[in-house]
């Protein structure tokens, strides 16, 4: 096991965050704060509470989940795409590093960053909204599972992308709609019956539902199913990464 190598990649990626603090930490915090102000305080004060939880508090898990997903995907995809783009990836290929170790470095750093941003947003939310966390251990479990899973997903996107547009398109065109339609802003039982069924194919529904359950004991789907679905998506991403590494797809000639 080349732990020095894993550490080198991890530190390199974390140092990049330090250099781009505005972009990687401040901007998600600011944009999420805007959601809290607009939807939580301004509009939320006119909304009825949902099963005893105020609308502003109801929003918190969904919005944290939104930034966890965005951060994980964009950090991980950029982290592996950039060395491919500038050509420094040659060094990683020529180093005595297994793919697992490369993955640990890049995905570990991306998940760490996303977790940190998620926690900062959770802390910021406290300034606007009074919320409580009923099951902290489950909350942390979802936090970690989500950041790891979506960092893996981002890693795949970073390897797949061969230009900057492709890098942007998945977070914008896939993650954002799935999150908005995945119950960040509403419980899915307010949807018409047909759409309640359709929405269940959206994997983000399970993440948000499970995450929200850890806060308020309030869920769209059973929390066990949420954990299962998240683990399923994790397994899917691992399989994707395994296939890429086995075939050298878009990595090696």
């Amino acid at each position, binding site marked *: 096991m*080349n732990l*020095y*190598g894993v*550490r*080198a*990649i991890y*530190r*390199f990626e974390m*140092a*990049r965050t330090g*250099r781009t603090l505005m972009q990687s930490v401040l901007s998600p915090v600011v944009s999420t704060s805007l959601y809290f102000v607009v939807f939580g305080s301004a509009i939320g004060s006119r909304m009825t509470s949902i099963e005893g939880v105020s609308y502003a508090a109801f929003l918190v898990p969904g919005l944290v989940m939104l930034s966890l997903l965005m951060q994980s995907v964009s950090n991980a995809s950029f982290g592996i795409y950039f*060395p491919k783009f*500038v*050509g*420094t990836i*040659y*060094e*990683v*290929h*020529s*180093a*005595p*590093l*297994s793919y697992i170790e490369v993955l640990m470095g890049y995905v570990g750093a991306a998940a760490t960053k996303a977790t940190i941003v998620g926690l900062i947003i959770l802390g910021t939310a406290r300034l606007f909204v009074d919320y409580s966390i009923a099951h902290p251990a489950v909350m942390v479990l979802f936090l970690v599972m989500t950041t790891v899973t979506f960092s893996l997903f981002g890693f795949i996107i970073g390897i797949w992308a061969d230009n900057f547009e492709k890098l942007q398109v998945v977070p914008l065109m896939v993650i954002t709609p799935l999150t908005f339609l995945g119950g960040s802003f509403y419980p899915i039982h307010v949807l018409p019956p047909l759409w309640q069924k359709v929405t269940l194919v959206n994997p983000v529904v399970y993440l948000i539902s499970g995450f929200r359950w850890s806060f308020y004991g309030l869920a769209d789907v059973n929390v066990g199913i949420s954990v299962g679905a998240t683990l399923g998506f994790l397994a899917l991403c691992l399989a994707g990464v395994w296939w890429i590494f086995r075939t*050298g797809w878009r990595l*090696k*000639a």
Partner: protein
Amino acid sequence: MQNETAAGVAHGDPVIEVRGLDKTYEGGFKALKGINLTVRRGEILALLGPNGAGKTTLISIICGIVNPGNGTVVVDGHDIIRDWRKTRTIIGLVPQELKTDAFESVWSTVRFSRGLFGKAPDDAYLEQLLKDLSLWDKRDAKILMLSGGMKRRVMIAKALSHQPTVLFLDEPTAGVDVELRRDMWAMVRRLRESGVTIILTTHYIEEAEDMADRVGVINKGELIVVEEKTALMQKLGKKQLRLQLNEPIDGLPESLSAYALDLNDARDELVYTYDTQHERTGITSLLRDLSAAGIGFKDLSTRQDSLEQIFVDLVKEGA
């Protein structure tokens, strides 16, 4: 004619052995065709060849950047596929193109490289390395602030950061100024004295002539020849005899038409090209026939073909 055994001077045991290596890229381009090559421990081997000949592909396979086709590569007794971790720890690579992390400092990028190759931090070694490469003053500078030559030095520092015993330099002096080139060759010599095996590719044939112990020529994916540099020059080299004439002549007399003679524009110098490998070089009879024709000369000199000429001839033959 892949004979590489005869040449004599024993350098050391083989440190890299390439056997029957093929590589066909996805598009169907055959970059390497059955390469056999032995690199000896502690030598400097120069690989020459025109663009697209397969030099970089060969290096990239040995370093683990490109997947090999058929054939085997063994580095220091370890197969590059089975024992990849060991072989990659041994090898350092300076690629042809400048590929650096623009926003990193020199110091952090070199520390990164060392870690990547699984070595514990050793700041004293890295400090000495940067000093040797005249980079110590620039250690805190971001790489994007450096000149092209300085970036090249950073690439070398990265490649040496994990103390490799086999170093690949892929066209290290392309686009490099005279001073850096001189520094670089001084460093290559020092590395070689410390026992590092060096494989370099270059377009500057005089460098190969100057630096290398052995020279390999690759063309169209095939290794045409690998030979001790001196032996290669002797074996394949043509020599020229130059005769400074007493007075200009109008043209070559009939009696001399059998010789490969060239008259210069000023018509006062004759150049005779001959093959050193032939039993008879023809010099004696030429001189005799010259005096019979009444052509006198005041001075003569001989000149051996440069490696460049040999290279050009070889590649032409292969075509």
